[in-house]
């Protein structure tokens, strides 16, 4: 049983979360599609949490359950210690859906005021928050134009602004940089960092893993409705053992000098890389110095989040 509000240190918690679509009373013959197969997850305050997984893994379903957009699930879900079906809970939550559609008959400004008011703010309060947010996402000068005139990137930036208009404590961002140009992406990353610094929790669902790697503290990878791995970015991107050296001058072939130290040596001029242990690395440095080779740079390579993700998903498929 999940704790009730006040006892929980977590912003959101799910236990044994299961969801099957298309097996209701009208689809008795169909067993339906199981999107989630028993997820356990807790997210603490002030974290930037990345939710990763291939298409159809169940990421969006989980987020939608937490927002009460998807119902009829098994297991337990709590947002700020309360079930998602409680509308009061959602006053503290902002959401930028994937492939969202803002009301095209409204202007950007009207969208901000509408969603601010729907979140319980007065019109004045919503207007007061709208201007700086639109400024931050670079939409202030276009905010009087109708949404139907906006490009995809502009709509995405407006979507992000509307998710934050009521100053939420928890923000779900589903593909936040989708369709946004590199400058816009940098701005969005900045905003996420600002939000984190102000104490909000951010839950990011994205396929752009390099961005997730840049801004997330914790990551969970799910596939086929199950958690494959969860941890910090450091934990998710372990060292590979491959170390890259750059020398000032071309040392000539090194295979004899470094024989017995490490494996998979590859050399190209004054640069070479080799897979080594920590002890072997010390020994290589000593040998190079003894031969009077000046070392310009040493880089110990880690797995990228993307490589880690691909390996995990491949492993899971096998």
């Amino acid at each position, binding site marked *: 049983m999940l704790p009730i509000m006040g006892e929980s240190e977590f912003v959101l918690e799910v236990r044994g979360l299961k969801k099957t679509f298309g097996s209701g009373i009208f689809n008795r013959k169909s067993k339906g599609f199981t999107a989630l197969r028993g997820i356990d997850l807790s997210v603490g305050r002030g974290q930037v949490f990345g939710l990763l997984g291939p298409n159809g893994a169940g990421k969006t379903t989980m987020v*939608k359950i937490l927002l009460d957009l998807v119902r009829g699930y098994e297991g337990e879900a709590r947002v700020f210690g309360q079930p998602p079906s409680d509308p009061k809970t959602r006053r503290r939550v902002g959401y930028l859906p994937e492939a969202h559609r803002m009301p095209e008959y409204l202007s950007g400004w009207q969208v901000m005021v509408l969603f601010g008011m729907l979140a319980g703010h007065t019109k004045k309060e919503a207007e007061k928050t709208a201007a700086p947010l639109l400024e931050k996402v670079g939409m202030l000068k276009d905010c009087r134009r109708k949404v139907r005139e906006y490009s995809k990137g502009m709509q995405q930036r407006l979507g992000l602004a509307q998710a934050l208009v009521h100053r939420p404590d928890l923000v779900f961002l589903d593909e936040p940089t989708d369709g946004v140009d590199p400058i816009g992406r940098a701005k969005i990353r900045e905003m996420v960092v600002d939000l984190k610094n102000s104490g909000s929790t951010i839950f990011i669902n994205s396929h752009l893993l390099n961005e997730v790697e840049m801004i997330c503290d914790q990551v969970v990878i799910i596939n086929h409705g199950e958690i494959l791995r969860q941890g910090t970015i450091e934990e998710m991107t372990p060292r590979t053992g491959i170390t890259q050296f750059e020398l000032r001058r071309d040392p000539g072939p090194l295979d004899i000098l470094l024989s017995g130290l490490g494996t998979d040596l590859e050399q190209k001029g004054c640069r070479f890389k080799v897979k080594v242990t920590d002890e072997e690395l010390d020994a290589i440095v000593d040998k190079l110095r003894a031969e009077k080779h000046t070392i310009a740079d040493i880089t110990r390579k880690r797995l990228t989040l993307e490589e880690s993700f691909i390996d995990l998903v491949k492993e899971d498929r096998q």
Partner: protein
Amino acid sequence: MNFIIFRALFEDARQQVLDNKVFRLLLILTAIPIVLTFVLGFHEESITLFWGWKEIDYKDIMEIFSAGGQSTAEDMAAQSIRFLQEFTLDAVVGRIGIMLCIAATAFFAPKILEKGSADTLFSKPVSRIAILLSRYFAGILFVAFISSLLVTGMYLGFLINSGFNDPGFLWGALTLVYLYAMMHAFSMVVAVFTRSSTAAILLTITLYMFCGGIHTGWTSLEFFTQKQHVAMLRIADNSDDEDEVEEAGELIQFLTSSLRFFHYVLPKTSDADLITNKLKRALTEKPPAIQTSDGEFLMKLPPADFSLVADTKGKFEDTGVEWSAEGKTHLGADSMRIRRYERPKQERKVGSKTRIRSQTGNETAKQKMEELQATGASPESEDRKLSGVRTTQVTWLESDGDTKHRMYFFHFDDWIYEFELIGSVAQLDSHEASQLRRNTLDRGNIILGDITGKTPGTWYSDIFSLTAEWKYNIFFSIGSSLAFIVSMLTLAWLRLRKIDF
């Protein structure tokens, strides 16, 4: 749902409607009749165009349409305006207007349920039922705005340009709102189940036409059933043979039962303008002295200068409704009573068969004579035709020798009617007594529901009232339509709460 959220949802709906092309077309169509009332002036003898730029005599118009009428010039102005008012409410608003309103707002629910839009809206701290109801009531508010604009505009146009003041016309705004409230509820259900504006428009318009068809069929069925019943009674009155009613075939019974079922279950769209008209009349005209729930009897005005005896009110089918002169001797009677009761059934032997037939007014008068004679009185009877109805008059004196009674008996369809004057001999033999009888039983004052001369539409329009039998009752009509609205909204809510966005 708090006020801020409702305001936000309403503002959203307003912007959505203003952005809609059908709504703009609706506004233009609304403006046309309003402009006409300001441009056309209806005066005593002529119609003026553009404030006197051109003048057309009613005579010339009548000649064009080859219609010779006895109407006075004043009548013509009022009649023309009333025609325009009725045409606008019945044809423009009741038929085209409602369809345009449905088309202009049918996208209300589907739009918010579209993928992408729904995620953003339903993730806000607003319950699904609040969103559903706000969309429903926002639609009603827009239609209320349009219809109020139309009737107020036309009212002011007629008042300013033609000097015709008819505040009752303003009630016409209710017709469209009431009609729309029923259809919009259905449109919400279709929208929630299909998430398609096109399906919502098409199915709602189909239902609207289906309701109209069911109402026409049901009215005709009820009308001809009543008519057949009356015809049977009249045959029985005039002959000893009474044809036995043949049982209808199974298919016919199934069809009539289905027709009745659909009529009771579906919203009563065709009653909307009738309700508005009845409401208008109830608020602007004096209520009738007596009106029966079956629409068979209507007495418009009570006898002049008489006072209703309070405890006889509503006893028309019991001891009778009585009015008293309260000591005023010049009124032709001290008191006046009017009553009806079901025609007693009599068994008669015709050959070897026993037939049952209803007692006539004349037979009831004879019965009264016999009762009076048994008490020692000397009643006199006389057959006479009053306002086209065969009546038997019975007159007698009480034992005091001064109090005189005059009773008139007649039957109509299922009922025996009694009309009685009580007063002194001098009063009842006076010219005032004849005048009182004439005024009270005058064809213009008392209307007997002669079904044979009516069409299903006029019959239903007459019988449909607040006091009619339940199936012809305004409360039943409104109640069942409101039940339909509530059922539809409940169905929409039940579906909406299950939707996974």
